[in-house]
């Protein structure tokens, strides 16, 4: 069975994934829109930069974050002068790391979603008297729904499975930075295979259910409103 510590790790993971996904959605919407619509010739540089976390080993990412965020680091030092607590080995630090780590998983479905929206429905809406903001929420957002769902679920699921970055900048503090993947690693290290099975199995089921939701949602949207 799952121990209290395991449940705490699960809850922390859930909290981390939720907060990170929400922050990412807000930040990525304008960026993805810009990436989809901009005709700037050096756009590919931004695209490559945004995709970096896809290929970078999480430990590399975590290492740089650790160096930057530590009280002696550039960012950490600056944050300290404006009164922000040390981010290393804290939940806030984990959120920051997760946001960077899962960035491409949120940005890319959104960018594809924006790209697939033709300009014609928006032009029609404009001639029908809808202002840019009204067009955004009545046409763009609903048409973006499949992309939004994919982005949320992928961002959430990917953050749930995070290991390397957490290990580097978060360590293994129960209730603060000990996420499920770290807890599983701990169980295996101390040869508690039964415990590891429970946690790993739980994560497996959650991941599958999430992906199931994405594909079911996409199928429904393809079929239209009726």
């Amino acid at each position: 069975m799952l121990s209290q510590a395991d449940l705490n790790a699960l809850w922390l993971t859930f909290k981390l994934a939720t907060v990170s996904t929400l922050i990412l959605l807000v930040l990525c919407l304008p960026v993805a829109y810009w990436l989809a619509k901009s005709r700037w010739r050096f756009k590919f540089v931004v695209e490559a930069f945004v995709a970096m976390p896809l290929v970078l080993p999480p430990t590399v990412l975590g290492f740089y974050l650790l160096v930057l965020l530590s009280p002696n680091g550039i960012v950490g030092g600056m944050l300290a002068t404006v009164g922000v607590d040390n981010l290393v080995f804290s939940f806030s630090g984990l959120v920051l790391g997760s946001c960077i780590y899962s960035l491409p998983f949120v940005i890319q479905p959104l960018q594809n979603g924006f790209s697939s929206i033709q300009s014609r429905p928006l032009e029609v809406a404009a001639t029908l008297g809808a202002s840019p903001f009204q067009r955004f929420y009545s046409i763009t957002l609903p048409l973006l729904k499949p992309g939004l769902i994919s982005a949320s679920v992928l961002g959430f699921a990917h953050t749930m499975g995070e290991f390397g970055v957490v290990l580097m900048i978060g360590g293994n503090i129960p209730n603060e930075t000990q996420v499920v993947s770290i807890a599983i690693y701990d169980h295996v290290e101390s040869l508690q295979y039964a415990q590891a099975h429970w946690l790993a199995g739980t994560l497996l089921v959650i991941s599958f259910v999430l992906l199931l939701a994405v594909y079911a949602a996409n199928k429904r949207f393809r079929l239209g409103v009726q």
Partner: protein
Amino acid sequence: MSLQVSFCQTFDNCAIDLDLNLANRGVTAVFGPSGVGKSTLLRVIAGLDEIDGAKVRFNAQVWQDKGRFLPAHERKLAMVFQQPSLFEHMSVEQNIYYARRFSTKPANSAFPVEDFIDTLQLRSLLKRAPQTLSGGEQQRVAIVRALAADPQLLLMDEPLASLDDSLKSEFMLTFEALLRQVPIPVIYVTHSKLEVARLCSQLVLLDNGRCIGQGATQQVLTDLSHPLALEEDAKSALHGKIIAHDKHHHITQIDTQAGIIWVSLVPSAINTTVNLVIKAKDVSVTLSKQTDSSILNILPAKIVDFRHAGKGKTILKIAVGETFLLGQITDKSFAHLALKKEQEMFVQVKSVALS
């Protein structure tokens, strides 16, 4: 009402300078060959294309001029595009009432949307998803959706171009009925003479971005100084009221400005106003009234003018009743009958297409 538009687009070499006087209601066709910038014209009027130096003025409202560009959603117009472009995430009904979501004013009773829905036979489709509708049904929804926006001006960019030819004639009959209900001026861009003759009361001829002819459709169509009248598929338009049906012979009698005319059965009630399109090819002339002809419509007439159109064809402009018809005959017959201006004779109208 007046609409002034001028713009110059250097990259595709199209420049348009138009000053239109629009009636308070009724359809004005803007006719011209493909590629003269007709669609661009509508996009500039609508505020969808912002071309530097363009000027758009509708009545007293300046929509675009130096340093001023009123965005599309603030212009009191609506537009129907070539493709229906329905919002796929909304039902037919939500599409139709889309503009009402943002309107703070109460619905304008001059736009009886519910009546439009009935006229275009959309009542049974309201709950459907747009993707499940045929092309013609989708375009009908798009038209009502535009009217539900309570516009002061309606722009239509070849709305029938995406429909199959077989659907067009059926579509036009209901479309015609709808256009008569529309209480605002409509600008109808097309390169189909049939649609012009059938649906539009005013006609503006475009060539090289310039207006080369403007006036009542029937007048412009039968004006032999325009190349339009000399083309192979020249047409004239008539309108009239249905006075009788002969279901046995499958024909309908219509009282037109040219006189009483028999046409193939029209599926509309007695007293309905209908527009007829008469191909110049289907009009022939005889010097004496034939009594042994298979042709039902023989009317007294007078030649007003004629032009040799080349390839052995002569186009006659013929005064019939209170209006004019175009007739196309061969140069040989023209010489044989020794036709001349002011000559009294008879026209035979072979078949009259309602479509």
